[in-house]
């Protein structure tokens, strides 16, 4: 898994060695201090599912999970991934190729059109799922800690979409929580 960034550097730069967990696998690499996580994922590890939408933290297309929390990977310095647990859209899909319930809900509810925002949306919804999975729950009791539709909308404000008008994406998240199948 060891790879180097592109050759042909005009000037010599100090490289930093980092190790982290990427989609449940331990990986390490040498990178420049200025490398952003988005480029590390896409160009070094060649996982193209994380999408570059703006490179300035506005659109959310490049959302990945760092220790279960959503971050814009375009604003996250890759050196800070050292020792952390990174999950991308590729890590969300089950090993046998079957879809994670978040992805399944997006597909079945018609939440995917051009699809360029979808990876980021899926990771943001997964982050929401993590939040509620980790919250205290007594078996047998009715859960009242699910997000409301308005809370889902608020949570997804950082992910832009130009095709769907967001309705089906919010539907997908809402139905996922209603089913408790995460």
């Amino acid at each position: 898994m060891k790879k180097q960034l592109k050759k042909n550097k005009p000037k010599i730069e100090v490289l930093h060695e980092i190790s982290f967990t990427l989609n449940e696998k331990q990986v390490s690499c040498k990178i420049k201090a200025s490398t952003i996580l988005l480029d590390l994922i896409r160009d070094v590890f060649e996982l193209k599912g994380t999408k570059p939408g703006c490179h300035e933290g506005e659109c959310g297309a490049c959302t990945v999970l760092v220790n279960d929390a959503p971050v814009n990977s375009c604003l996250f310095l890759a050196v800070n991934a050292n020792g952390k647990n990174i999950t991308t859209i590729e890590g969300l899909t089950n090993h046998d190729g079957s879809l994670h319930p978040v992805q399944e809900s997006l597909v079945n509810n018609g939440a995917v059109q051009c699809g360029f925002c979808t990876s980021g949306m899926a990771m943001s919804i997964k982050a929401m799922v993590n939040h509620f999975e980790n919250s205290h729950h007594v078996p047998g009791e009715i859960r009242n800690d699910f997000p409301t539709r308005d809370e889902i909308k608020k949570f997804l404000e950082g992910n832009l979409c130009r095709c769907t008008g967001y309705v089906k994406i919010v539907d997908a998240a809402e139905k996922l929580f209603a089913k408790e199948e995460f």
Partner: protein
Amino acid sequence: MKKELKVIGKPIPKHDANIRATGKAVYGHDIVMPDMLYGAILRTEHPSAIIESIDVSEAKKLAGVHCVITAEDVDVNNIGYKRDHPILKTGEANCTRDEIAAVAADTKEIAQQALKLIKVKYKVRKGIYDVQEALKKSAPQINKFISGKFENKNTAEIFHYEHGNLEEEKKRSKHIVTRKFTLPRMTHACMATSNITASFNLIDKKLLLYSSTQVPFLYQRDMAHALKMNPSDIRVIQPVIGGGFGSKLDMHPFEPICALLSIKTGKPVQILYTREEEFIASPIRQPMEIELTAGVDKAGNFTFREINIVKDNGAYTSWGATTPFVIMQAFSSLYKVNAVKFDAMAVYTNNVFAGSFRGYGNPQATFALERVIDLLADELGIDKAEIRLQNANRKGETTGQGLHFETCGLVECLENVISKSHYNKKKSINKEGRFKKGIGLASMLHVGGGAKIYRSDGCGTILKIDPYGYCTIITGSNEIGQGSETVLAMIASEELGIELKKIKVINTDTDVKPWDVGVHASRTSFVAGNSLLGAIKILKEKLNKKASALLKSGDSEFEYSDNKIISVKSNDSIALDKVVREMHFSEPNELAIADYFYEPSSKFQDKDFKGNVSGTYAFASQAIEVEVDTYTGNVKVLDVYVAQDVGRVLNPLLLDGQIEGGILQGVGYALTEELLMHEGKILNPNFHNYKMLTASDIPNIHFSPVETFDKEGPYGAKGVGEAPLIPTAAAIANAICNALDLEFLDLPITPEKVLKAISLRNTKNNSKINSHSL
């Protein structure tokens, strides 16, 4: 007797949604080719300047740079709808987007570094950023590549249309209203930025392009013209496209530039726009001023409309210049009107040029028209819903422009939204207090069966069934996320009795697929659907013949179900794959393949712009309720009631997606989205300052499809893609005006404009009170 449909009409998810939702779809940004270089473009620093010199020597010396090109290094033709657009600019810069030089390098970083080493000497000129300035006699000619067809040197295009006796209709009008509206620059903001990968093969001199174009065959021809190549030596492959909305109807300079870099280096070259570049250098919705005068007689019938439009063409001419084709349809034919005189002019300036954008001028036209209809109703003292119903188009009508409405659901659409929104109750609810609610109505008319603006509006299909019973549809049409592939697969599944997972749609390669004019004008499901149905009919004749021979029954009528061909008379059946194998392997040994080219019944309009330009027409009405915060000026869109004549629902899940996505774009157009310019430069080229709406801004959308079963459409369906956003801004504006009892003539209606209008009225009222009290 109507056969019950098994697949059509069902809410089936997009067939490759799972690929897209797992990050496995390959977009232009994801393409990596061996030995690939990265291209970058140097744009002018000044929107209007003389370019005195360009020095690329330092850039060429930088390690990792393979090629630097300027206009001097290439032998090319101009591009654009009027061929008035040089790919690389020399001598002068006329627009902030102007491409001066381009670089190909080993990495994106080196390419950017190289751009910084290019030294350009400019002599800055005073630019012309206002259409009225451009029309003055003293103004210099902005675009030097036009032939001087028009009297004024800065006129890019002129449209004139009329029907009926205008003067007579003016005379018999009881009320006449005149207003001038200003429409903003709106940008597509596709989630994937513009991209292209070009690979020129030095051995066989063929050019391979991975391009997000919406019109691959026109693009192939345009590219060939630009590069002085044979179109057939250019192969266009469309990767998965991250949003279109009309932005990819034109070929833009970065595309032939990328091809030139590849031709010069003999290596694949990729250009990816940054988001800032996307805001600055990709096309926009046409900004324009619309002056509309319209009349109504004492019985409430519309008498006439007189329209004068001045569009800011920017420095070069794109397909966007032809939007008056569509704009005039709304004015000539939405609601019955006896006389129309329409004039539109596109004027060159040093501003950015527009392209085409979902709705193609219709949102602008509909905003002006529906606003004035509200004012006419007020003048006459007639209800705003009533006046629309009274004048609504009906089935069977042929309008003054020659548009023929074989089916027309406008009355049903209007009645639907009026009733569901409780319009009559809500229009006069209490407007006291800080938060004022209002409701507005608007309708729209748009082409629903393609638009014959090119010599052919056709689409080809090649259909085959393989010996394993799988079906491959090779269609000329394109997928840009809207789901047309899925609709085509559903049609094949319905007609051939093959399950969806056994159906493949091939639609991305000009070397393989048959001709099609492109994805635009809400045409794909209609035109490609009909084309596929034509191919299915031919293929079935072949399959029926073989099945009949194999069953030895002499039957001629068959049904296709569960991968079987079933005799209607005897109910005997035979497996579809077996029939195909027998076709291949027994005499007369033929393929289970068929091809068909579908051309809609529509006509190319005459020189007076008259004629039935589309195979059918779509209608829609929206009733929108808003709440205005009179302290902050914020407008909240509460409920959108939308009814749309879709002909027939082919897939309700995908249809909802088009409606909801369109409406939110319409809300953005109405309230928040504007590309701001000052002296030719764009002030807000990022998502932080260009306000696209987020999930929190979704209104409650209540959608009712209206089915009119047009005999021209596949299963009766009409085009749906553009319609949802067309009346939204108009209905929102009408609702805000209803809430505040104020008028708004410009979009977007920002909080700032709302507060200004409220405070202006308060000042006026106060001064009135003061003068009275004196």
